[in-house]
């Protein structure tokens, strides 16, 4: 098969122009659905980053002073180890705390460059036997004001509520995006079928004079792909706005303590962008493939 790129681009452009309104509808639908889909991932990343220290059932953290003595540290460790109310615990030393800090503030090099391990507090991440708020509060209070302890922070009800709310919001994003992606696939299919029908005479001639099936198919499949990629570009712009304004806005230093760390790093943003593009290609591939196999090759 020898494909003339000028011919293919001309035919694809004509197909899109013939159905300009429905093409625009498909682009918008794909854009919104992919924005929701990408938003689902970004929001999940942000919530995960904000609540990372509370994963695995950890209900409170005992932050030690960086300059706490070995004896003070041993006292706290013994209390935790011997407490029947504590199921498990993890010690995060200063180097690990620095790694965590660098991960959370990966996009703020001016901050990570000036912070060193020595000034960061090590901590005990504690999982109690009973995670009910009253028991956790009582247990955490046993470590407040002990020598060498800088601060005791508990994953109170608010954090759990945020996690629950985030779960629900992301589920709505996901369900909404799946419904809209299905609609987008059907729209692409309809547009390609419409283009095939409006070019019935040309297709008949092409078949009679010996054009290969792929030669006939490709402009139609490209039409679907162009719609999907335009939609993905729109979604990408929307995701940048979501990240730059909403997510970063919530994680500003002057915002709620709870929301600090609520952010998405560059690698997470670009992997989400790539996923959005892949989904766009898959959606267009399904829509166009069904259209050409059912209405063109028949």
């Amino acid at each position, binding site marked *: 098969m020898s494909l003339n790129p000028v011919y293919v681009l001309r035919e694809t452009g004509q197909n899109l122009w013939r159905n300009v309104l429905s093409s625009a509808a498909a682009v918008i639908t794909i854009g919104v659905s992919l924005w929701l889909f990408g938003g689902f991932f970004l929001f999940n990343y942000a919530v995960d980053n904000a609540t990372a220290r509370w994963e695995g059932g950890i209900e409170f953290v005992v932050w030690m002073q960086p300059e706490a003595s070995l004896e003070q540290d041993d006292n706290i460790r013994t209390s935790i180890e011997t407490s029947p109310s504590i199921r498990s615990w993890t010690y995060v030393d200063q180097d690990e705390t620095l790694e965590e800090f660098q991960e959370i503030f990966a996009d703020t090099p001016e901050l990570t460059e000036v912070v060193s391990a020595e000034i960061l507090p090590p901590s005990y991440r504690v999982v109690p036997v009973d995670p009910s708020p009253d028991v956790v509060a009582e247990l955490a209070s046993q470590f407040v004001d002990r020598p060498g302890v800088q601060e005791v922070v508990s994953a109170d009800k608010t954090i759990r509520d945020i996690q629950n709310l985030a779960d629900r919001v992301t589920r709505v994003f996901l369900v909404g995006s799946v419904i809209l992606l299905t609609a987008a696939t059907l729209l692409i299919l309809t547009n390609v079928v419409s283009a095939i029908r409006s070019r019935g*005479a040309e297709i008949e001639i092409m078949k009679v004079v010996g054009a*290969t099936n792929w030669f006939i198919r490709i402009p139609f499949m490209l039409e679907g792909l162009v719609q999907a990629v335009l939609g993905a570009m729109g979604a990408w712009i929307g995701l940048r706005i979501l990240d730059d304004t909403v997510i970063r806005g919530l994680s500003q230093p002057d915002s709620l303590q709870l929301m600090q760390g609520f952010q998405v790093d560059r690698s997470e943003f670009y992997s989400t962008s790539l996923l959005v593009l892949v989904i766009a290609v898959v959606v267009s591939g399904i829509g166009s493939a069904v259209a050409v196999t059912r209405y063109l090759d028949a």
Partner: protein
Amino acid sequence: MIKLSSVTKVYKGAVVAVRDVTVDIGKGEFVFLVGPSGSGKSTFIRLLNREERPEHGTIYVAGKDIGTLGAWRVPYLRRNIGFIFQDFKLLPKKTVAENVAFALEVIGKPRHVVRKQVPAIVELVGLSAKMENFPHELSGGEQQRVSVARAFVNRPPILLADEPTGNLDPQTSVGIMKLLDRINRTGTTVVMATHDRSIVDTMRRRVIELDRGSIVRDQARGVYE
């Protein structure tokens, strides 16, 4: 060039369009297919370019059993077969030159080949002065000439024509037949289904008569009836 052995084609509802047809058409022959409507002429032609497949029998075109061709090879078979329609089937938004060039573009011919072959074939059919005209600006005869040019621009060894003069007046039909005769003289095999008695009687070429799908007459230098 074309060989059918015991070919039978049955459509849905047990309608037998072609029944146990065996025929051999040599290279460079000009053959008229005649017979009443529904006798199987169009199906005969559609079988030759694999638009239809027979239930029984084998069909050889240019030495190849086209029944065993994979679907992906059918387009390459069709590049060796020109096809002329009764209703011309020209693309209304393309000029004469563009309609003819279309047949080369869609089989991937390079631009310099298209630029060279299109004017030559348009001249052959006598429409050089109307290269940039659109189909609606042409008479029926001129439109059919464009259709012939499109079918022959790739110089196929076989030309199939399904009632090419069916929509034309007698005088215009004569012009089209002269054109087909000229193409036939270049060595191209022409198979033409027709109802046009005067054309068949005038040209005196091989005549194959079909009736209810069967060959009832195969006559060299024949007449319509």
